[in-house]
């Protein structure tokens, strides 16, 4: 058994929230460089150039990459040999978010109730997903999610007879509807299978996979490549102003499902697809 004081979790979450909102991960930076090289429209290239410059300014001057520093989505993979000490783990995680967002000059974008809507003024609570895994480590993945793109996300409960073509149509429909609202070039997270909530969760988790890394399952990898081409053929382009790069990656996760169903979750993310991992 390994003991971990929850203060260590607070400190990690706090510093990760600050870092992830100012410095885009290497995979996303590469994806943006590739987009710039591939883009054919002159205006599109000009916009991608601004996005690259934006990343440099964000990092050097510690100005968040985007003013929407998101609602903090946190995946906790907890080794089953771990025993947490020093208080509640969930409180410690939220304390980390509070500290990071307040001390890091990040925007407070969370309201306490979806209808009454008073700002909590410290960006808490986070949306936390726990899983228990073998071992004695804790892996924290933080992905602050902006809502321009989150609002364009969809769940489709398809029929088994709709098959892979149905999945492809669902993805294209969601991306077309998102258009300029989701700050393209986008990253598309897709979850196929499971249940209603499982497909949405897989779609969210898929966004944390490095851009450019494909699924190990051959047909899923093919689907990812084909959908990226099909999405780029839509011509939505950078900022939705036309061009050859509409998406930079399509990441798909799958899970067994029921004989009667084919759930598909599509989580749309913008070019500021923030994700950061740390193992404790």
């Amino acid at each position: 058994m390994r003991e971990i004081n929850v203060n260590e979790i607070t400190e990690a979450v706090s510093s990760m929230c600050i870092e992830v909102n100012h410095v885009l991960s290497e995979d996303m930076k590469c994806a943006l460089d590739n987009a710039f090289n591939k883009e054919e429209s002159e205006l599109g290239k000009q916009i991608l150039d601004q996005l690259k410059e934006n990343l440099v300014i964000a990092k050097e001057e510690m100005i968040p990459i985007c003013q929407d520093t998101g609602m903090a989505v946190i995946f906790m993979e907890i080794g089953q040999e771990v025993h947490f000490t020093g208080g509640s783990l969930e409180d410690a995680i939220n304390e980390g978010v509070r500290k990071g967002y307040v001390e890091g000059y990040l925007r407070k974008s969370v309201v306490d109730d979806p209808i009454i809507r008073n700002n909590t003024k410290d960006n808490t609570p986070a949306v936390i997903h726990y899983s228990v895994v073998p071992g004695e480590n804790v892996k924290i993945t933080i992905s602050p999610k902006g809502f321009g793109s989150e609002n364009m996300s969809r769940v489709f409960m398809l029929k088994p007879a709709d098959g892979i073509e149905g999945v492809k149509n669902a993805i294209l429909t969601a991306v077309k509807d998102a258009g300029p609202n989701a700050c393209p070039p986008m990253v598309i997270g897709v979850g196929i299978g499971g249940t209603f909530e499982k497909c949405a969760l897989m779609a969210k988790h898929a966004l944390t996979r490095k851009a450019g890394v494909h699924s190990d399952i051959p047909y899923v990898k093919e689907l990812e490549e084909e959908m990226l081409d099909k999405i780029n053929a839509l011509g939505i382009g950078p900022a939705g102003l036309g061009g050859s790069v509409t998406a930079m990656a399509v990441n798909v996760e799958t899970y067994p499902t029921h004989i009667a169903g084919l759930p598909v979750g599509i989580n749309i993310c913008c070019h500021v697809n923030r994700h950061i991992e740390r193992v404790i």
Partner: protein
Amino acid sequence: MTKNITVPMDEQTKLDLTAGDYVYLTGTIYTARDAAHKRMQESLDKGEALPIDIVNQIIYYMGPSPAREGKVIGSAGPTTAGRMDRYTPRLLDLGLGAMIGKGKRTQDVKDAIVRNKSVYFAAVGGAGALLSKSIIKSEVVAYDDLGTEAIRKLEVKDFPVIVVADSKGNYLYK
């Protein structure tokens, strides 16, 4: 076409703008997003005056991140304009000059833009650090309690935008 424009703009300047024009704005603009629009709507419903005179002014749909010490503002890029669509035609009919945001507008808004000879600009979403460099002054002028959603008066210099919807009914997004 690339243009440099002083804001607020006169009627002729607005009429001369065409969807697709790349424009650098210099002058004064105001920020307002979801919560501020809701409050302005409630004021109008009650027959009260708005906290700012919107006539001929530009509203930028934006809620910044907090400014670090010595800085004018934090990250300051556009938010999705479509969420304001329910409130916009009324504000345009009351004289609002133009808007800056990102993303699609409804037909009602597009019609109100033509009817009022207005214009809808897009700034590049997700470029908030870069765009903050074009903001030289920021002051909260109403709804301070709304935090990032308060109404701010901004002085901008060469603030880059693209005309998406113009007064002639042209619309840049597909």
